[in-house]
């Protein structure tokens, strides 16, 4: 292989990059109106890291994945995967990465075993050679190995797709919404599998709209409308929340949420499951008493006001609100 220079920085060979994945002002637009899908997105993923792109549908996650896996050309900026340039070195990248698209993309009319064999053969390897990588996952679908992929349940399809993405021992794994529509138990099992793969030294870039999965990543980027809102470890991001938060509950939550949003000293109020998260300017006994009195005045009962810790979702809401206003 000859020398390869980055298109976005020709002064050094990115083959020796300290990062497994680099995105540098990556940009993509679509259509005649040049609707921006990915807007100068930059981030670095270290070797062996689980890095999460956390954001809703339409945030640009899939476009970023497609550009990094060389399936789509960027309209601006650039990037590298395992030191290979995403435009010039597309052949090397395709050989070294594993990609599990959000939409089930295996051959529906081939059996479980045939699909796996197919992907192994395409990458000049065999199932036996890398069986240790997929073993934990494959044993769960092995009883159905003669079944056509199209006839598998959602959870089993997901496991097969992961096996097919792993069978050539990729150095970097791209997982685009692997757990969307999957029930909480299967999601938990899936994340345990990812942790085992991380121990094998595989770098994992994972996209998800589930905020609670953010905490399972080493570092995350929160993304919305093609723009990155923030990048850091989940704990640091949660701790960066600028205000104190109180958990509030009463017998009629819709009234709690509506009536507290406009109370003095309250920055915002959102439902968070059983409780509402009330973001306050300052946390003290006075505001707690004010909230309580305010709710009593609304004829509410079973009132509970407690201190709480901010979550990734609190940060996401706060950052996306600031961005849109």
């Amino acid at each position: 292989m000859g020398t390869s220079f980055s298109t976005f920085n020709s002064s050094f060979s990115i083959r020796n990059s300290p990062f497994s994945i680099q995105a540098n002002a990556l940009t993509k637009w679509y259509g005649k109106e040049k609707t921006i899908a990915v807007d100068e997105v930059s981030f670095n993923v270290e070797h062996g890291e689980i890095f999460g792109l956390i954001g809703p549908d339409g945030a640009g996650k899939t476009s970023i994945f497609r550009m990094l896996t060389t399936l789509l050309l960027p309209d601006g900026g650039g990037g590298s995967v395992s030191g290979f340039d995403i435009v010039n070195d597309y052949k090397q990248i395709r050989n070294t990465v594993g990609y599990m698209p959000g939409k089930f993309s295996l051959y529906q009319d081939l059996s479980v075993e045939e699909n796996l064999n197919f992907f192994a053969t395409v990458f000049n390897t065999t199932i036996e050679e890398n069986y240790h990588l997929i073993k934990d996952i494959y044993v769960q679908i092995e009883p159905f190995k003669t079944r056509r992929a199209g006839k598998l349940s959602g959870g089993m399809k997901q496991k097969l797709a992961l096996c097919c993405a792993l069978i050539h021992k990729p150095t970097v794994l791209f997982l685009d919404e692997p757990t969307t529509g999957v029930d909480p138990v299967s999601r938990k099992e899936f994340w345990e599998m990812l942790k085992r793969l991380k121990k094998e030294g595989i770098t994992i870039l994972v996209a998800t709209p589930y905020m609670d999965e953010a905490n399972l990543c080493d570092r995350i980027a929160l993304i919305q409308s093609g723009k990155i809102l923030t990048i850091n470890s989940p704990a640091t991001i949660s701790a960066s929340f600028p205000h104190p938060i109180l958990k509030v509950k009463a017998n009629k939550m819709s009234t709690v949420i509506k009536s507290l949003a406009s109370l003095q000293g309250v920055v915002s109020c959102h439902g968070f499951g059983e409780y509402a998260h009330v973001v306050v300017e300052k946390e003290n006994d006075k505001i707690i008493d004010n909230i309580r009195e305010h709710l009593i005045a609304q004829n509410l009962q079973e009132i509970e006001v407690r201190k709480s810790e901010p979550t990734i979702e609190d940060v996401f809401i706060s950052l996306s609100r600031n961005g849109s206003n």
Partner: protein
Amino acid sequence: MDPTNKILSIQTEKLTKRFGDFTAVNEITLDVKKGEIFGFLGANGAGKTTAMRMLCGLSTPTAGKAVIAGYDVYKGTEQIKKRIGYMSQKFSLYEDLTILENVSFFGGIYGMTSSQLKIKSEALITQLGLQNETKKLVGSLPLGWKQKLAFSVAVLHQPEIVFLDEPTGGVDPVTRRQFWDLIYDASDSGITVFVTTHYLDEAEYCNRISIMVDGGIAALDTPSNLKKKFATESMDDVFYELARGAKRTGD
């Protein structure tokens, strides 16, 4: 079971559905009060979709009883269908029709008169703040708007019950909360909300939830009682404790 019960919207007793040797739904018994927000949870393959299809009058039970919106689930399927609304993440609205066209189309299907439709659709457009978008094709709207619109269309004819199947998948956190504001409004106006979701924090917005495991109801209570029962702060733990013992997997 009393069809004239004015307090309960959904009553089932040992409701069962078998496909050949396979019991998809096994003797489920539950009551849902009028105006209640009821969360219907379960792992993939637990039987939620089959159960919901029976409750909507789309699938005849093999055994058991059910009264939905005052009508028997065996004999009154047509009356049931008129009195419910349905929305899922997959089937929402016609992408090639405008917002207003979709509203008229679905309102028409539910037998609303044009004068009723006019009043209702204006209220809907105002509530969603879509005054300037009414002539836009639904396909061009962001996902969050589509889902909010789909919900509003599903309750346009003021049904007794609205069934929501994974309504907020992939929607951003702010829009998800606006969506729940709409659900609360519907519930306040007396509409019973029956919702499935994989977001367990979302399940906690419900007044009561049930968790299905292997075709049966493994737990049914308020979110806070369930958490107390399992001595945990997190709904995830409750679900995991109940569902990890499941023998069935898959959809």
